[in-house]
């Protein structure tokens, strides 16, 4: 029994009918072509499928698509605007925080939520924010530095 949902993804209004057991991950990847959201474990343990729902990070593999009704979703494809990278994306490139790239979208979105709520986090707060995003290639030092660099840059602008 399909259910009709209406929601916003990366600023675009989407209206469609979905099976009640469809996950947000499968909706994004399979039906909306938003491949940047990654499936790493399908059990809410790796963080690769993290997206932002109404300003909070959620694991899209553990979230039913029907829950998105009237919600606002941001995926990695919504982070850059008109080809201009979000500062977190540019900082990730500049700090060599990306290796295989499979975990990248997840921690970038976790970091975006962190900085949206706390523009000047401590290193410990950065660590906690991305603790649910496993990275096997790079370790975490560069990821943390890339996030802190954005935070510090923003802090300077605000002064």
């Amino acid at each position, binding site marked *: 029994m399909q259910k009709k949902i209406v929601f916003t993804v990366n600023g675009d209004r989407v209206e469609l009918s979905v099976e009640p057991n469809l996950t947000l991950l499968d909706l994004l990847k399979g039906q909306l072509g938003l491949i940047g959201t990654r499936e790493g474990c*399908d059990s809410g343990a790796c963080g690769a499928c993290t997206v932002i729902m109404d300003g909070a990070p959620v694991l899209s593999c553990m979230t039913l698509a029907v829950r998105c009704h009237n919600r606002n979703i941001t995926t990695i494809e919504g982070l850059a605007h008109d080809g201009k990278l979000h500062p977190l994306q540019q900082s990730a490139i500049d700090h060599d925080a990306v290796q295989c*790239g499979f975990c990248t979208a997840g921690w970038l979105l976790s970091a975006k939520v962190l900085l949206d709520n706390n523009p000047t986090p401590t290193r410990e707060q950065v660590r906690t924010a991305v603790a649910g995003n496993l990275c*096997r290639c790079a370790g975490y030092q560069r990821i943390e530095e890339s996030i802190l660099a954005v935070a510090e840059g923003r802090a300077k602008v605000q002064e």
Partner: protein
Amino acid sequence: MPTEQLDIVGTSSIRVDARDKVMGKAIYIDDIQVPGMLHGKVLRSRYPHARIVRIDTSRAEKLPGVLGVVTGADVPFIHGESLLDEPFLARDKVRYTGEGVAVVAAVDVATAEHALELIRVEYKELPAVFDPVEATEPGAPLIHENVGTYTRAASNIKPIPGTNICNHFQLKTGDVEKGFAESDYIFEDTFTTPMQAHCCIETHGAIALVDDETNITVWANNDSPHRARKEIASAFKVPMTKVRVIIAPYVGGNFGGKGGLKAEAVALAIAWKVRNRPIKIMYTREEEFCSTIGRHPSVVRMKTGVKQDGTFVARAVKIYLATGAYAEKGPTVSTFAGISGAGPYRIPNLSIDSYCVYTNRQLAGAFRGYGGPQTAWAYESQMDIIAHKLGLDPVELRLRQVYVDGDRHANGQILKSEGLRDCLVQVAESMEWNSKPLGKNQGRGVALMERAIKTPFGSAAFVKVNEDGTVDVLSSTTEVGQGSATIVCQIVAEELGVPMASVRKAAPDTAFTPYDASTTSSRSTFHMGNAVKMAAADAKQQLLALASKLLKASPDDLTITQGKVHVKAMPERALPISKVLSENYGASGTVLGRGYYYPEMPEGESNYFSRYMVFWLLGAQGAEVEVNRETGEVKILKIYAAHDAGKAINPMTCLDQIRGGVTLGAGFALSENLMFKGGTVLNPSFLSYPVPSALDAPEIEPMAVEYAHPDGPYGAKGIGETTNVPTPPAIANAIYNAVGIRIKDLPITPDKVLAALKRKDER
């Protein structure tokens, strides 16, 4: 090395793949859809060792949406990289829990999963064996009855017929018994390591298509397309022209885990039966833990004789590596474990036996370090045991014994470009070994490592100069996250004289990108680096010849800078590459450069995983730790890591290979352990298998030592693969230094620390 003026090599260019990855545009295997594609799911054995009495697939075949079901009887083919011993699906018997028994192809994943439940398999259980030492003993259940007759990749793979040993590597120098007799002290210790799981965040996946004329196409996230192509062609007995392996544009992690045939094998099995339809199989995380490969669990027995003054006289090493149900790369892993089994030290009398042993568990194969972590855990832990017994400083003892240029290695070769001593000196200086005060329950330790490099294997490349002066590099090196695409582009840009932004490396496709042995063994920078350098130099010479008459100068007087051919002494007498091509060829110009690198070998050496090494992977690490006596927890305060890069083509990505490797090594040291009950994996999930998170990762000070190699491109060697190897023994040695306990079995969990502290207090 002559000093070269370098513009791009040696600079920290940003990664060529980074932008696609941060934007979510990178395409991985799971994103690839092929028209008419079906989905496959695998039924797996629930027994570690059992005869298959019968399989009934009839109900599954009748399920609407199912296009076919395949079992081992339908695909009577065998594959394997070093030993041909592995069926595409179990036939007659299963040899591990998790082995593929049947595959269903269906219109979608849910239907395929449903069909699996309808397949009935009747098993008759057989006695199983799980411990690698027990498996070598007389009377142990035989996992492969015919190991002695299996086809081997080369004569230096030595199974012992009638046993579970699929390779016995031996290395003897001097007279080890005489050496022990002449020693003042004899040390005998046994060290063990568990199975570590690769935990690439991207799981294995493949799409296989076999048409009714046996043309085979495979899309995969495999690390080595040409090796896979050869393995497929020889298994299915078709010419290599009928097999095409296409690697996804991006691969989400490797560490050795994505070589050989994994998802490819089961996808091919069903595609062999259900013809003319592409069939995709993506592994689940549980399959990843239970039905791919991990790091060989090991038992290493080390006996060492030393003089009172610390001089090493003799060492006997017995290495047992549990390779699981099929050999996979185990025979060559055990060879490398053996070659460096005594450590990077001058010891005149040596006896090394390295056994690769079948067990009834999930396979072990290539994993970052390839035999190095198991042996370094043993020889570097015992190094400190010896130092403390003799009252010698652990750094000082290592400096006295460590190989330097001109030494004869245990394998017989005279060493050159041996930067290990420099690595240790840098680590000791950075951590202020002799002077920095540490707090209560804090300690410091060091460890070294050496590992062989897959020798001798070739790499080829083409450099295509396009009409507009941009450059495509055709190379089958796979970008798995290690940064090889960036390194390849940097070398081509440097050699050809074009900007980085003008160079692009293609993703591997065996129909177009030329032969490369493998993206493994930290061989790409050295081997493919040489190949693309040659190809770029070839293209450059052709361009200079073409420009010669246009610029009215001899090719010898010309060069290329920033994409313009010009007279060396007069940069203003210049023509853009695009103009050179169009003036010669009109609208259809191109230049094609080619390169093939194959190392020069001493006469008589094996041409498959030889004992002679074209270069060595070398590194030293230091650890500072704090031990909590109440909880047994070990906190890593800092890791100092120096590895010999020869020449860092890209210093930034080079150091980040070290950062990533140390983090993986720290996990192996303190937490990671794929646990089994009998043949069953107990923790096949990220919820129960503890991969280090951002909260666990240690602070790291990475250092690249540049001890140039005369045969490396710009002096470069490989670095990435073994940056995890010295971390566990460095940490164990630091724990001993902190609280006086010696843990010999990885991982160093709080319960082991508390038990050892208790035993120490009772003494």
